């Protein structure tokens, strides 16, 4: 069978899965990479129970499209229809076949194959999902114009299933995931002018995607055009995405402007907006400012959540105000939030920065006693801190624990650890750490080796200058 493209693998929708585990079939939904399951009608659980074990031995050999030519696929389908008793009446089965074929054929062939399927096996009447299979394929086609997409959309309309919001969403997401944002925008505008505007999910998806992959101006002009052309305005979520984005690119002025716009539009910032702003300050290395945001939240009566406290503690730790950070650890527990690994790790990071890695290790014990499991980031932070403070033996013990649990090393702590080992002349152990880094796939061979090589080079130089033994 043709391999599914990775984007669809998560959709868990392939003929081979249908065959191997008939019982899992009812859970398989729709051939779409979209993450909005709530849009789809819940299918009844029963109909596929009929794909029974007596047909099972025959199916695997039959439904595999080794060849991508249309005629072979037709022959295959014909033999499937004539040789299999108890053909499933459920559309999912046929949709899966179509999807399997479409994953390595051209759109035209897929359409012809669909027509063939209908002709040979009239009980099968294509539904919305059938056409969405084609729609996805059209969005991925090598043709960089929108004409294949139009072809499918027209096909849908002429067959009495006019595209709806889900279709728009699928098309937009597929286009965006194949780096064709411009066409996604074009399509959205076109559909908006045809009275099927995108819903807020689609709209915000595009905005978020543009933020990540295109210059700011592209997104701004998209928002402007949607507002002026179709009266579709950004909502609070959109503004949060935009603020987050400009904060990530350290553009504080734009963030402030957006905050102004937000309140002009009549939105009241919620917890998420404030969290984003806090994060922004952390990104800008102005972690101390998080306190003022927190105060503002309290003035406005917005209730902080776990993320707020985590960000707060992170920001304070980062800017060296560990004492305040510790205070907020207590405050959040009083408020009924349970500190998680992120909270503790941020705090430990701050303590290590302050040169108190032993206190951080004590906190590790405390957090474990409270039933919060540390993650690899926690251990990396501690390893880094201990090595920096030249407490190599303790670091070594920690490293052994990490190894036992199969935790990955991070680039930073790996480098610090290597240097600490080499400084004490424990080169063989450094080599062993190098092996572990590669074996546990913490780093690529190249990254692990470059660090090792440069550390050894540094050691040689330091020895020549008599700095280390």
């Amino acid at each position, binding site marked *: 069978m043709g391999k599914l493209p990775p984007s669809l693998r998560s959709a868990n929708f392939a003929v081979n899965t249908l065959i191997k585990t008939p019982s899992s079939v009812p859970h398989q939904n729709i051939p779409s990479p979209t993450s909005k399951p709530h849009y789809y009608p819940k299918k009844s659980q029963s109909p596929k129970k009929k794909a029974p074990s007596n047909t099972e031995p025959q199916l695997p050999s039959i439904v595999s499209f080794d060849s991508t030519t249309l005629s072979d696929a037709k022959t295959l389908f014909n033999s499937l229809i004539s040789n299999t008793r108890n053909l499933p009446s459920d559309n999912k089965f046929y949709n899966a076949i179509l999807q399997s074929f479409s994953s390595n054929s051209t759109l035209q062939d897929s359409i012809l194959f669909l027509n063939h399927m209908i002709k040979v096996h009239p009980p099968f009447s294509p539904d919305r999902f059938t056409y969405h299979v084609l729609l996805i394929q059209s969005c991925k086609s090598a043709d960089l114009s929108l004409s294949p997409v139009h072809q499918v959309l027209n096909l849908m309309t002429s067959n009495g299933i006019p595209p709806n919001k889900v279709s728009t969403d699928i098309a937009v997401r597929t286009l965006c995931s194949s780096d064709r944002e411009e066409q996604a925008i074009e399509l959205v505008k076109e559909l908006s002018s045809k009275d099927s505007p995108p819903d807020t999910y689609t709209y915000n998806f595009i905005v978020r995607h543009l933020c990540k992959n295109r210059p700011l101006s592209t997104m701004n002009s998209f928002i402007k055009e949607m507002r002026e052309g179709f009266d579709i305005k950004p909502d609070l979520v959109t503004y949060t995405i935009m603020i987050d984005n400009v904060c990530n690119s350290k553009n504080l002025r734009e963030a402030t402007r957006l905050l102004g716009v937000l309140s002009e539009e009549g939105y009241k910032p919620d917890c998420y907006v404030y969290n984003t702003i806090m994060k922004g300050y952390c990104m800008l290395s102005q972690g101390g400012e998080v306190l003022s945001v927190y105060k503002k939240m309290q003035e406005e009566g917005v209730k902080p959540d776990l993320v707020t406290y985590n960000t707060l503690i992170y920001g304070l730790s980062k800017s060296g105000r560990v004492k305040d950070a510790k205070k907020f650890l207590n405050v959040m527990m009083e408020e009924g939030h349970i500190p998680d690994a992120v909270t503790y790790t941020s705090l430990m990071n701050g303590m290590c920065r302050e040169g108190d890695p032993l206190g951080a290790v004590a906190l590790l014990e405390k957090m474990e006693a409270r039933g919060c499991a540390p993650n690899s980031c926690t251990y990396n932070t501690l390893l880094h801190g201990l090595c920096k403070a030249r407490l190599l033996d303790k670091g070594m013990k920690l490293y052994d624990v990490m190894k036992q649990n199969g935790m990955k090393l*991070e*680039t*930073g702590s790996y480098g610090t650890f290597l240097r600490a080992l*080499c400084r004490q*002349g*424990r*080169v*063989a*152990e450094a*080599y062993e750490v190098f*092996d572990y880094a590669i074996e546990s796939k*913490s*780093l*690529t*061979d*190249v*990254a692990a*080796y*470059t660090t*090792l*090589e440069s550390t*050894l*080079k540094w*050691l*040689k130089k330091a020895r020549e200058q008599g700095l280390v033994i």
Partner: protein
Amino acid sequence: MLPQRMKKVITDNPKKLANLIDLVNLPSTLREFMGQSQTSRLGCFKRVWSYIKENNLQDPSNKNLVNCDEKLKSILLGKPQVELTELPTLIKLHFPKQPR
């Protein structure tokens, strides 16, 4: 974390990365040791290091030293004993900078 670093390595010095991972035609001495005619500097280093581990060539009293056997001697300048610290440098000698 990782991809960023990779990116950094690459953008900082594409040539440096290239001379680490590009396959090179090996000189005859190294060819015999590796059992193949082409390898990268990184591959060679990993092969030598695993050879040392497989044959327990590290000095039992000081693990930082490697007591070379005949085969290893042939590729490491004929030294009877090398330090692990200088291993990358010694291997680099077999991979001279390519004149462009």
